[in-house]
């Protein structure tokens, strides 16, 4: 049992009271002084040349202060330096319905709206490319002519490991299938908003609803040709992201430009439809996959062909392309594996990162195929998976380092709790049970911008009042990152959360953190916070020793954590012992309840008040200040694309899901899910449970109902009434198992929680449907009409 006092205890989120009482200030709640209101004119066409764009009538309107078009920007933006292809405002041509073409800053929103109506635009329509298969073909008018490619292919990636032919030959069952997946949006609650304050020296403070203040900082500097130090990015309270706020986005650049031109503060709030246009959701995907299974050898081979429809611009697309293949490398060994993924441009909304980024759709394919192979070999799908799951401390064929893995125990427990054996294949027609597993990264080991700045730095200060301030660039987007950082510091310093204030996601006040994406914050910023706190503790121990008139401890430089495959040997912090789950600080003191007690030596049993120690330390040194950093160890192979999917640690998940299928209406009711999530040490069980519940909710949305409805390139359901997010009624009973391992390199043994959970819920539903009514659905969402069509087809076959 752990001896932690804060870690592992259910802890309400920092700021949750502010949120539920309405006190929390989200971006649009900030009141910058006397702002101009910014509005964007958007393209009604999916593809066209802009033959005329005239703002003069709009600018002539009394109260209109500034207007910009694509010509006011010299460079294009994009989160990945290798594919910055998006102009902040369309230049020369438009590439999707809803693309911003011009922007106006006016004294009021009604003036702004009037001015937008006065902008004259003439378009020469170009035949749009709306189909991902057609996008692969040669065309005379590619969507991105500047790339000088004959087709609309954006990125093609291939990887192959082992010997596929031999692998399939040695299988006892080879199964294959074609799968397709609808385009999705994140559907976060808070719409996009940006406000910009400008001072008399043209220094900008940009408040924005973003997951990535650091990348926005860099993008603003690049796009506005403004030195970095003249820009400060602040993320206020944020109402959900799920990857949708993890790119620097056009409206943020445009708002800042308008502030610079007008010299005025500006305010921009996108409505819900514009938020749909702006979010880079999950790629519509087509997958052909083949899997070979042997009852003893496991998965002998797997090959996949993926076609992902990226929409108008690149966004995270290059990463998504790789993730479609590399995230198949767990949770089971696949010695012979190949995949090929094409990402194409089409005249639709840009796609990018969304919870489970790139790994969700292929996970569906592979888990359904595994189920089919088990069926063919008459193997129990759970028992088979139990045998297959990675052992801890292994290396996959593509050189992912699996450190901890508690999935085997997790799945076994889930089998017991769900009474799998009593149910599988034994439930009456219409009711079924299914299983699926998955895994996910705990942060990308490689930064997007290649540099040597630590991926996370956390700074701590304590002043004479004993209050601890944690400075971190990490973005709390509702997932609880502020809370988890505060918890770690409180744990190390033996004080309560009320002593701690986290100041985060402010590029001026906080050290660099790469942002809240790829499930990296708990692991990376967490390690940095923990290490900063350990250093702070050393300072307090020294002061305590002064008061007690004893010699400061001689730190046993603890052994590096059983470092398994620390490839390349880069030390993640100055002292690798500060990584990992070991709570032994080697200082002979107990820090608890704001008391510092000597546990050994001459002063054994003596207890000091934390505030007294702080006061002494501040008298000696002034304000106490420490910092901790995190840099991933050097990982991975040297082949092309070896960096994709590398992570210092991986989370694992298994779902056993029970459904009822109505054979008359085709409606699927998910009755119960049993979830085993190996997130290492659960730092805040309340947050872990919230993440699991949220992932199930979001995953079931994709599984059962969500999808963007395109007609001629326009999204027809860009509202929360017509884009069907499941309601509380659709949320099933959930049983969770999540205390399954301790990761040697995670802070207090923790790993990612809550992103990897999403993917396997979807195939677990599909596999349960098969158990219920004997149909294999390969098109997601699995809507009632598809269920009925499959049932009818099956009945037809039988008669």
């Amino acid at each position, binding site marked *: 049992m752990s001896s932690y006092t804060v870690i592992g205890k259910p802890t309400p989120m920092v700021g949750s009271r502010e949120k539920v009482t309405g006190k929390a200030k989200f971006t649009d709640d900030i009141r910058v002084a006397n702002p101009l209101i910014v509005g964007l004119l*958007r393209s*009604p*066409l999916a593809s066209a040349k802009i033959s005329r764009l005239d703002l003069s009538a709009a600018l002539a309107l009394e109260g209109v202060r500034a207007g910009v078009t694509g010509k006011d920007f010299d460079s294009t933006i994009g989160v990945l330096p290798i594919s910055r292809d998006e102009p902040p405002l369309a230049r020369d041509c438009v590439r999707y*319905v*809803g693309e911003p073409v011009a922007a106006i800053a006016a004294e009021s*929103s*009604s003036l702004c*709206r009037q001015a937008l109506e006065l902008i004259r635009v003439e378009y020469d329509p170009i035949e749009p490319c709306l189909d991902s298969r057609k996008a692969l073909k040669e065309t005379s008018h590619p969507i991105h002519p500047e790339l000088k490619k004959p087709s609309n292919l954006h990125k093609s990636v291939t990887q192959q490991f082992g010997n596929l032919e031999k692998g399939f030959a040695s299988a006892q069952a080879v199964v294959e299938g074609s799968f397709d997946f609808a385009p999705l949006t994140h559907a976060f609650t808070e719409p996009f908003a940006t406000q910009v304050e400008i001072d008399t020296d043209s220094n900008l403070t940009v408040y924005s609803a973003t997951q990535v203040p650091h990348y926005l900082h860099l993008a603003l500097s690049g796009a506005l040709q403004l030195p970095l130090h003249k820009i400060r990015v602040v993320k206020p309270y944020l109402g959900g992201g799920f990857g949708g706020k993890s790119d620097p986005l056009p409206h943020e650049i445009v708002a800042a430009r308008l502030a610079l031109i007008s010299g005025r503060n500006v305010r921009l709030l996108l*409505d819900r*439809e514009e938020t749909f246009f702006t979010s880079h959701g999950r790629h519509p995907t087509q997958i052909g996959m083949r899997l070979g299974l042997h009852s003893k050898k496991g998965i002998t081979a797997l090959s996949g062909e993926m076609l992902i429809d990226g929409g108008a611009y690149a966004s995270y697309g290059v990463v998504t392309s790789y993730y479609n293949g590399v995230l198949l490398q767990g949770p089971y060994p696949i010695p012979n594996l190949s995949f090929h993924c094409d990402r194409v441009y089409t005249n639709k909304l840009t796609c990018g990162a969304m919870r489970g980024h790139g790994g969700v759709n292929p996970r569906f394919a592979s888990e359904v195929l595994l189920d089919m192979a088990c069926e063919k070999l008459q193997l129990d799908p759970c028992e088979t998976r139990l045998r297959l799951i990675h052992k801890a401390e292994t290396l996959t064929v593509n050189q992912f380092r699996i450190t901890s893995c508690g999935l085997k125990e997790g799945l076994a427990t889930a089998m017991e709790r769900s009474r799998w054996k009593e149910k599988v294949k034994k439930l009456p027609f219409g009711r079924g049970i299914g299983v699926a597993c998955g895994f996910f990264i705990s942060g990308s080991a490689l930064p997007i911008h290649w540099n040597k700045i630590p991926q996370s730095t956390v700074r701590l200060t304590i002043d004479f009042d004993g209050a601890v301030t944690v400075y971190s660039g990490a973005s709390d987007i509702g997932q609880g990152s502020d809370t988890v950082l505060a918890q770690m510091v409180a744990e190390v310093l033996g004080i309560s959360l009320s002593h701690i204030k986290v100041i985060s996601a402010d590029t001026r006040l906080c050290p660099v953190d790469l942002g809240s994406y790829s499930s990296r914050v708990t692991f990376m910023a967490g390690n940095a916070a923990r290490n900063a706190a350990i250093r702070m503790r050393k300072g307090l121990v020294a002061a305590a020793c002064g008061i007690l008139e004893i010699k400061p401890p001689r730190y046993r430089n603890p052994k590096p954590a059983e470092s398994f495959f620390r490839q390349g040997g880069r030390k993640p912090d100055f002292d690798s012992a500060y990584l990992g789950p070991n709570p032994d600080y080697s200082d002979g003191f107990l820090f608890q309840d704001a008391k510092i007690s000597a546990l050994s030596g001459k002063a054994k049993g003596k207890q000091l008040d934390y505030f007294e120690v702080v006061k002494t330390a501040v008298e000696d040194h002034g304000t106490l200040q420490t910092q901790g950093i995190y840099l991933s160890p050097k990982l991975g192979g040297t082949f092309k694309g070896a960096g994709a999917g590398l992570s210092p640690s991986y989370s694992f998940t298994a779902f056993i899901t029970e459904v009822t299928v109505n054979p*008359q*209406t*085709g*409606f699927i009711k998910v009755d119960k899910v049993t979830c085993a999530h190996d997130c290492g040490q659960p730092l805040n069980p309340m947050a872990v449970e919230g993440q699991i519940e949220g992932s199930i909710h979001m995953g079931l949305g994709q599984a*059962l*109902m969500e999808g963007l*409805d395109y*007609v*001629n390139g*326009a999204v*027809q*359901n*860009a509202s929360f*009434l*017509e884009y*069907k997010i*499941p*309601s*509380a*009624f*659709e949320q099933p009973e959930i049983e969770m198992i999540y205390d399954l391992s301790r990761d040697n390199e995670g802070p207090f043994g923790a790993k990612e929680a809550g992103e990897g959970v999403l993917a396997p819920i979807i195939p677990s539903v599909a596999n349960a449907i098969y158990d219920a009514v004997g149909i294999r659905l390969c098109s997601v969402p699995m*809507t*009632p*009409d598809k269920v*009925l069509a499959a049932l009818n087809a099956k009945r037809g076959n039988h008669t």
Partner: protein
Amino acid sequence: MMPSFAYERPRSLEELGKLLENLEAGSFLFSAGATDVISGLKSHPQSYPKTLISLTALSELKGVRLLEKNRLSIGALTKLSEIAENALILKQAAVVAQTAAKIASPQIRNRATIAGNILVNNRCSYFNQSRHNRLVHQFCFKAGGDICHLIPAAREGHSPLCRARFVSDLAPVLLLLRATLQLWGPDGYRKISLEDFYTPDGIRRNNLKSGEIITAIETDLSCAKNVTYEKLRIRNTLDFPSVGVAVMLNVTESMELAVCYTGVNTHPVLIKLSDDRKNGKAMIQAACDQAKKSAQPLRQDHFPPSYRKEMIAVLIHQNLQKLGWKND
């Protein structure tokens, strides 16, 4: 953003009458629960009239009471949440309360009224859109344009033919309860049976004249226990019905079967059958066939048209099961 508009809240029908004397047709809009009105105002401020007349202070439009001859009167302003919990309605016409309880969401039911549900605007994936989206596809007939995107034959210059679908949950139930609407207008009161109220035009929708309002809904309670309602929607809350079917089954010396479905055509479709020989199976089949034949679903809902068409018969059977009908 909300546009500015004049707001009136008359205290009596008399006051309302005087107010209307000075307003031209088309220059004002009534609102009660305002759940439809406010969202429309926000998305299309340009196309909304200058004056909003709130009916919420009209006490003449309130109250639920039993009338003579086994009839029940429900005031037009009765909120859906009130209907769902009203003891009298629960006792006399439980199907009305149960249907109201499953409309939209709790927040909307706390504001929306029974008359509002009867008058709820028809919906279409090209009409219920932002101004931006309407510009993308061109404004359709219902939005003041010259095209229907769903019926390509009705292109430019044709008379407006609008196929926006009818989505009231209560209308099919009330139709089977032989409801009559009590209307008030500048010319005084009049009554109209609900059966004669709706028109098969997605724009005009019903026979309410300018300046007219519903004051009460009267239903016949004699067959209320023989009516049930079932609907399909992808989520168990919030959504309008993709298909909704009410069924009335009355077996005495003869057999009477009535079906009314919503969510598919431009108006609720009522099918009435009776048979002295009590050939139930054949009658049910006939009802299903007629429903299928009359249904004209279009691509304007989450579910594909063919699926919605097919589901009418399934819902008829689900209702019959609830009504205790046993398929032999």
